[in-house]
């Protein structure tokens, strides 16, 4: 009940901001339309709808990091969180309450992205369901980063780090817009040490229903989930103590 109450509040705080709705749901759709238009005029393999949609659904999740981090950092800067820390709510309840509402929001964003892709010509296959299902571990990755940055940074820093830097990193190092091999071996190696490209490859493989290809990327994503979520919990607990 306590977790649900706090989770509902966090969801309302995020969804009642029109800018969040515009960027979280609208921006991936705008990109999808843009790449479809490019593809219609200058066909590029990378921008084919079955190739670009999984990437955009992953890229859209970088906004989940921004939303989660923003709501936490704003709560920290205002006295509301201080008030809530004096109520009989356990630290783990706070962490769950910030995490749980982001999961359906992430799913909704992905579903909207795939509906738009189907309208734009993506074949309806069972792979779409797999891709939507396996967006869950990817969304956990981005939510954990939100918890982490929200616990470490103030709301202005969150805007810079999550709004600008992370979205760019997530775009450049994920192989969504360009083939990583084009930049060079060093860049490719760095990208494959980070979770972004593995998230995109996981989604691309799941859309094709190719479990064998998806598995190594899933392992990377789950590994990053575990590491980032542990760090997020530790830093969240640390900021409670710092209050």
């Amino acid at each position, binding site marked *: 009940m306590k977790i649900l109450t706090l989770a509902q*509040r966090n969801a309302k705080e995020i969804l009642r901001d029109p800018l969040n709705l515009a960027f979280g749901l609208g921006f991936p759709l705008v990109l999808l339309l843009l790449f479809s238009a490019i593809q219609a005029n200058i066909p590029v393999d990378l921008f084919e709808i079955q190739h670009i949609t999984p990437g955009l659904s992953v890229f859209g999740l970088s906004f989940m990091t921004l939303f989660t981090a923003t709501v936490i950092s704003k709560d920290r800067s205002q006295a509301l969180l201080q008030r809530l820390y*004096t109520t*009989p709510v356990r630290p783990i309840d706070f962490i769950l309450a910030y995490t749980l509402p982001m999961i359906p929001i992430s799913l909704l964003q992905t579903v909207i992205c795939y509906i738009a892709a189907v309208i734009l010509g993506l074949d309806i296959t069972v792979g779409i369901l797999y891709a939507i299902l396996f967006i869950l571990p990817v969304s956990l990755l981005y939510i954990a980063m939100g918890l982490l940055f929200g616990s470490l940074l103030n709301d202005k820093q969150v805007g810079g780090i999550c709004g600008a830097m992370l979205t760019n990193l997530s775009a450049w190092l994920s192989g969504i817009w360009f083939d990583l091999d084009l930049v060079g071996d060093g860049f490719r190696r760095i990208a494959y040490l980070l979770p972004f490209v593995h998230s995109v490859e996981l989604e691309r493989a799941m859309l094709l229903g190719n479990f064998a290809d998806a598995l190594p990327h899933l392992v990377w994503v789950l590994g990053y989930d575990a590491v980032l979520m542990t760090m997020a919990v530790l830093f969240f607990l640390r900021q409670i103590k710092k*209050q």
Partner: protein
Amino acid sequence: MEAIRAINLTKKYKDTLAVDNLNLQVEQGMLLSLLGINGAGKTTTIKMLSCLTQPTEGDALLYGKSILTESMDVKAMIAVSPQETAIAPRLTVRENLELICGVYGFGKNKREARISEMVRLLRLEPIINKMGGKLSGGWQRRLSIAMALISEPKILFLDEPTLGLDVIARSELWDLIRSIKGKVTVILTTHYMEEAEALSDRIAIMKDGRLLICATAEEIKAHAGESSFEKAFINIVREAEK
């Protein structure tokens, strides 16, 4: 019955001694004001008593429960209205009140009864469906106090509750505080002498983290040999500087 007992309560921040060996008893239903100039240690004392900050040394018992070892029990019986207005800006006034009922685990019937009581007590009806962030400072402060009172706390901490309020809003808040006196143990911090004198059963004057005196306003005036409470406060604080 003893509501609060602070035992050698101390808080150090690196080189700063924010609260120095505080020993204090507060009886049930009493309104105690913590009075002091900036940096006296008032807010840090409230933060320790409300389990927000751990003391460096010492302990405090709230209705016999330790802030160190039984913090969840302590949290279940207290409420805090922080210095800054502590509301959720994108929730309506009703939703803010529901939020606090939810974190205290109130069922639907109790939740509705408590919200109705707070709306009546703090006259929130005209703004009940407005967003918290859109309210004026006075209404936000009133909502913040309603959010503290709605959980039916045994002990209520009010950290500078009238800071920034106009004279009418302050007077209304004083009336509210008077109305809960005796039912709830209240610890109030303030910079305003007249507020402490008008509302308090006892007043604790702090300076540099130390408790200088804890007595009634009349006793403090007699101790300082002054007829005005403000002059008595100044005398006591200046005396401590020597």
